[in-house]
């Protein structure tokens, strides 16, 4: 694996204001993403897992710059020649995406695309499949009409919608959920991005069609050299889709490691509890569930100490509720944990 990551995220933060009262004054902030750092190698797939409200989708949206970060930097590796063509400034071979604006931001989106959860709602129902898949090319002004048509046909073939002519001029409502998600994949990949953010791309699909879409995403990543940020709440799906997994809790990454390492040797008490609650499709296996108190709260003005303190089954009073939230540290072999007690 290369030593030069494709994406480096450093100290990423996104705070949303909460307005209250008569004059809708802002006193409080939701710390949706709070000091998150990670990197993704070329061709690597990083899974971002966690419960609803942990900030995983916000992180994804920040990386494609559908949202602007409150603080932090998002470095994206680029060739010097490309950067010159697109008029962006490089720092050691990286462009800082967090500050991009206007034309440079649009150009950046040639390299980065997103696939959304709901194949029923992420497509304009009045556009044909051809228009939907060709849209990124049109937006970026790539290719003539003829070239676009050829490219769409090619992409539809890649995603298994064959023959392409029989799909191109149909509308989204005429397709099944699995077929629509294939269209979404074709749309995301048509301009040859190197980085794709996939937000729960298979969670709305039935089991019998889901594996096909998962397989397709992996095949295309291998073939075109794509890195994924794969956002999901489903750890079993993440096991199959990701080389590494990062677990988020209330806006923070609490643990990050190679997939099998994380699943078999979790170190953070939250990861342990989360993994133990995942049901296992084997009636002969009796798992031991680690019970934790309470439920995930909204990170409005959270305390500066460990975010998991009030639910943690092993927390030490006087330490975990006194010291700052623990930093994410390498505990050996690239297994990162943010916990005072590990």
């Amino acid at each position, binding site marked *: 694996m290369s030593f030069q990551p494709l994406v480096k995220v450093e100290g990423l933060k996104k705070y949303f204001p909460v307005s209250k009262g008569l004059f809708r004054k802002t006193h409080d902030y939701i710390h949706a993403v709070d000091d998150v750092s990670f990197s993704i190698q070329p061709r690597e797939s990083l899974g971002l897992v966690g*419960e*609803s409200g942990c900030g995983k989708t916000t992180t994804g949206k920040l990386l494609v710059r559908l949202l602007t970060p409150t603080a932090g930097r998002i470095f994206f590796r680029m060739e010097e020649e490309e950067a010159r063509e697109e008029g962006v400034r490089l720092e050691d071979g990286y462009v800082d995406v967090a500050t991009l604006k206007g034309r440079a931001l649009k150009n950046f989106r040639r390299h980065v695309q997103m696939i959304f959860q709901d194949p029923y709602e992420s497509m304009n129902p009045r556009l044909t499949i051809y228009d939907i898949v060709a849209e990124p090319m049109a937006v970026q002004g790539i290719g003539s009409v003829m070239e676009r048509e050829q490219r769409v046909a090619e992409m539809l073939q890649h995603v298994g919608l064959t023959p392409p002519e029989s799909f191109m001029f149909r509308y989204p409502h005429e397709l*099944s*959920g*699995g*077929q629509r998600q294939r269209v979404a994949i074709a749309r995301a990949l048509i301009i040859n991005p190197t980085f794709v953010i996939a937000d729960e791309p298979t969670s709305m699909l*039935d*089991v*019998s*069609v*889901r*594996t*096909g879409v*998962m*397989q397709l995403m992996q095949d295309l990543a291998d073939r075109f050299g794509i890195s994924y940020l794969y956002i999901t*709440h489903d*750890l*079993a*799906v993440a*096991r*199959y889709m990701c080389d590494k997994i990062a677990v988020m809790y209330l806006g923070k990454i609490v643990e990050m490691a190679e997939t*099998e390492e994380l*699943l078999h040797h979790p170190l953070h008490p939250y990861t342990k*509890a*989360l*993994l133990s*609650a*995942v*049901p*296992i*499709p*084997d*009636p*002969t*296996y009796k*798992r031991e*569930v680690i*019970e*934790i108190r309470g*439920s*995930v709260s909204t990170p409005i003005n959270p305390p500066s100490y460990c975010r998991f303190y009030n639910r943690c089954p092993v927390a030490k009073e006087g330490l975990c509720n006194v010291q700052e939230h623990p930093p994410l540290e390498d505990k050996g072999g690239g297994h990162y944990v943010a916990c005072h007690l590990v």
Partner: protein
Amino acid sequence: MREPVLSVEHLTMHYSTRKGDVHAVDDVSFELHPGEVLGVVGESGSGKSSVAFTLMRLLPENAHIKGGHVWMNGVDLLTLPEDEMRRYRWKRIAMIFQAAMNTLNPVYKVGDQIIEAMETHGVAYGEAARKRVAELFEMVGLDPALMDRYPHEYSGGMRQRAIIAMALSCDPDVLIADEPTTALDVIVQHRILKNLLQLQKRLDMAMIYITHDIAVVAEVSTRIAVMYAGRLVEIGSTEDIFLRPKHRYTEALLQAFPSIHGEKKTLLTIPGELPNLLNPPRGCRFHPRCAFATEICKEREPEYRTFNPGHLAACWHPVGEENA
């Protein structure tokens, strides 16, 4: 074995639409025994929820029961006039709906909504009803003080618990749970399932647990029915279904499902899409996607065969009989 509390025979139900009849439930039969949890698994359009709504007789106007019986204590629920059905619904057979947490009325206190349900069914009134709600809240793991709060003050998991309390308020013999935890995170899901199973045992209730999640069904059920495209293709004990599946669809479904436990096995990809029920495939409904299909599968609907006492499957080429 005790007499079944519910016995479904050859149930067939279609929805009429502008494009034609949707064959939602086709010739489905099963029995539910006291104290058991029957898991019903299937994908979208398998008919699993339609079966539940038919049992409750809570069907939209375009639904037509084409045939079959639902026996409960010697009475066929399908032939009861609506006013008599009302005495069964919720009191004898209750249901927790999918996304039920959104079915609480936002402008009434949660406790009052449950009291109203009990008063409507003549189970308890006034102070007695309030006391019963407090008991029910304790049972489902909610602080009884929460009964005077409004739904928006509850989290998703708490709302789901309140819904379970409401479903149990009239002390039903049969509880149908339709994907009650689908929208919840795994930690909350685990707590709710644990609680639901404890209650089911304590109240000696029979339960039908409907889900698309094979892992959940492995944990909650004593028996499992597998549905595909409106048909019940296999039924048996949880061990039979997981360790000795017979129908090729059941086998494929198990091989397509990922797990975080054990070795990372290769997942099976099932070709094709779920069938359109306006015009379901002839013969076995799974044949267009089945790797083992032959001529007979396209022509004739397979009949149920018994593989083990209580383990039935309708497949022309069951697992273990590769050359049959």
